[in-house]
């Protein structure tokens, strides 16, 4: 990646490296996507009705806004296709229960399985079982232990989130000497938090004028976001930009910023909550952009499942088969393109 010099080249380069394939169904940062604003109206691999496909869908309990949006995206996408029947299990965080649900779907002989495991490692066996039974598995987001347990993995790019947040901030601050940046991270003992921070740090290395002066970890909750942000604001009397890993804790962070009466910096969020989109669109506060961890990946998973069930590839790619991994791009949503993403924002 030595040729990454310009911002555009850098963004696309990162996308090419991190994604096995760039799908139109998966959210992209390309403004030429045109008039299609919502995920559920974006062009799919093949819009015409084909042979009937039954897709089994097993997700975790929706205890977080993002997971709620993922389940919604999958169901709405399936409704778009008259020939697709979606068998949805009741979301569960209990590994044993989810295994049981998936086994039921296997026994029902669904054509394709889409699984967002409560725990990727723990559900590997049941993924293998489905694959052996001849039912291809689309593994969503939390990855199984073994590539043999899925036909295709679709997920987000945590490292890319950090990277893109850093690039966005870097471009905004590139003319400012000795710029200071702080980071409000998520739960520290999650691997994804480490990946986001790593991406952010790596991205900032491209901007020698910027220094990360502070980092605190919150817990993806409003309460912790408020508490940690309040301390960060007290510690750093001046800084130029803030990256917050998660829009949910961002609600608390914004509350702390408001309580401290600060508006002398720009803030970039993470994940893509509706409230963040609305704030970005209104452009009335410090929040200027957010980096996606797109819930539309579930819609894409349905598209892939359908293509798989019908034995087709994806339009726009030369391959006869669908890809084996699809890493969704962590697009930066700012005032310019927020309208396009508004409908994907989760509460």
């Amino acid at each position, binding site marked *: 990646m030595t040729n990454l010099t310009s911002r555009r080249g850098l963004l696309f380069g990162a996308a090419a490296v991190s994604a096995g394939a760039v799908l139109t169904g998966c959210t992209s940062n390309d403004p030429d996507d045109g008039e299609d604003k919502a995920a559920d109206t974006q062009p799919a691999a093949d819009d015409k009705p084909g042979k009937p496909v039954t897709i089994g869908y097993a997700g975790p*309990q*929706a*205890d*977080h*806004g993002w*997971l*709620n949006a993922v389940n919604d995206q999958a169901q709405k996408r399936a409704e778009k296709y008259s020939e697709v029947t979606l068998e949805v299990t009741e979301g569960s965080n209990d590994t044993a229960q989810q295994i049981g649900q998936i086994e039921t779907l296997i026994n029902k002989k669904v054509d394709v399985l889409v699984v967002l495991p409560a725990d990727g490692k723990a559900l590997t066996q049941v993924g293998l079982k489905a694959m052996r039974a001849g039912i291809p598995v689309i593994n969503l987001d939390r990855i199984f232990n073994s590539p043999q347990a899925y036909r295709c993995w679709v997920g987000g790019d945590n490292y890319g989130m950090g990277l893109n947040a850093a690039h966005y901030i870097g471009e905004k601050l590139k003319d400012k000497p000795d710029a200071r940046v702080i980071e409000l991270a998520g739960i*520290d*003992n999650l691997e994804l938090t480490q990946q986001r921070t790593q991406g952010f740090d790596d991205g900032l290395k491209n901007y020698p004028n910027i220094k990360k*002066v*502070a*980092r*605190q*970890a919150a*817990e*993806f*909750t*409003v*309460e*912790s*976001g*408020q*508490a*940690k942000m*309040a*301390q*960060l604001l*007290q*510690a750093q*009397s001046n800084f130029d930009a803030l990256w917050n890993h998660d829009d*949910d804790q961002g*609600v*608390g962070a914004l*509350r702390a910023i*408001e*309580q*401290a*009466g600060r508006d002398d910096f720009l803030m970039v969020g993470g994940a893509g*909550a509706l*409230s963040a989109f609305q704030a970005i669109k209104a452009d009335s506060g410090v929040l200027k952009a957010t980096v996606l961890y797109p819930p539309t990946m579930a819609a894409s998973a349905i598209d892939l499942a359908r293509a798989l069930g019908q034995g087709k590839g994806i339009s726009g790619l030369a391959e006869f088969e669908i890809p084996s991994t699809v890493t969704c791009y962590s697009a930066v949503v700012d005032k310019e393109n927020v309208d396009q993403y508004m409908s994907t924002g989760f*509460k």
Partner: protein
Amino acid sequence: MTQHVSPPRDGTGKTAPVDGPPAWRVQLGRADVRTLTLLGVLAALVLIGGITQPDAFLDTRNLQLVLTQASVIGVVTVGMTFVIVSGGIDLSVGAIVALASVWATTVATQEYGFVGILFTAVVVGVGCGLVNGVLIAFGQMVPFIATLAMLASARGLALQITDGRTQVVTVPSVLDLGERDAYILGIPPLVLVFAAVTVIGWLVLNRTTFGRRTVAVGGNAEAARLAGIDVRRQRLYLYLLSGLCCGIAAFLLIVLAGSGQNTNGNLYELDAIAAAIIGGTLLTGGRGHILGSVLGVLIFTTITNIFALNNLQTDVQQIAKGAIIVAAVLVQRRTASTH
């Protein structure tokens, strides 16, 4: 020993040898040592904070920040202290705070404005406390189990209400209380509530029959029963009280964070227990100190503050917190064993 005649009104009964200073001084002295130890720890922390971050730490804004952040868990800890003094435990405080905070911030509740939110938070808290109390006092359930069950169900119900979504508060009068320049009597409202709960808690524990009964039940439940105290009713009231404190804390949290979320109050139970223990409250019951508990909360909050100001990460903060708990308990064991 031969004949031993004892005139009726002359007490010549042997007294056990009492070594050292008179008993009252021993007792008073121990209370002082405990408070002084905690104040000493706090002073040391202030010193560390002042040296490492003279500008950011030694600042009225920061004092306000620390006290405000201590308010929510502080109110919970006062309730928890009562429960622990009575020989019980309430593991459900964090979950009750979460449930009360989301119930009080649903769209339907917010239509009733400030009063609706406050009322709902308090009623939900007291309601959960009532369930805990009935299960423990009349269902003969062990507090650990009963409140563990409440922890699970209250969190579940909170999730069901929110669907995992963050409920943002739109009632201005509620949000205003948490603003930077909101003062009542020159004190931030949250801090004022915290102070009031502390003072009332202290008075109730130390100056009322309710407090005495609490101590008696915790010190020796059988003796309390045989002395004519209604032990079961007292237990019921204590879990109600803890629930009430959770309801108040939930309202403070709503004001502070401007929202309700099912993940609120995460691990409050452990923080509150830890603060009470380092404050000198016996986990086995029978002795407790509201002031010590509050100092415990302030110590923890100050540590978090100093660590954040110095940009130290979560791992280091957690290690330090564990070390402080161990150190405080060891110091107190040493001072307590000198009777």
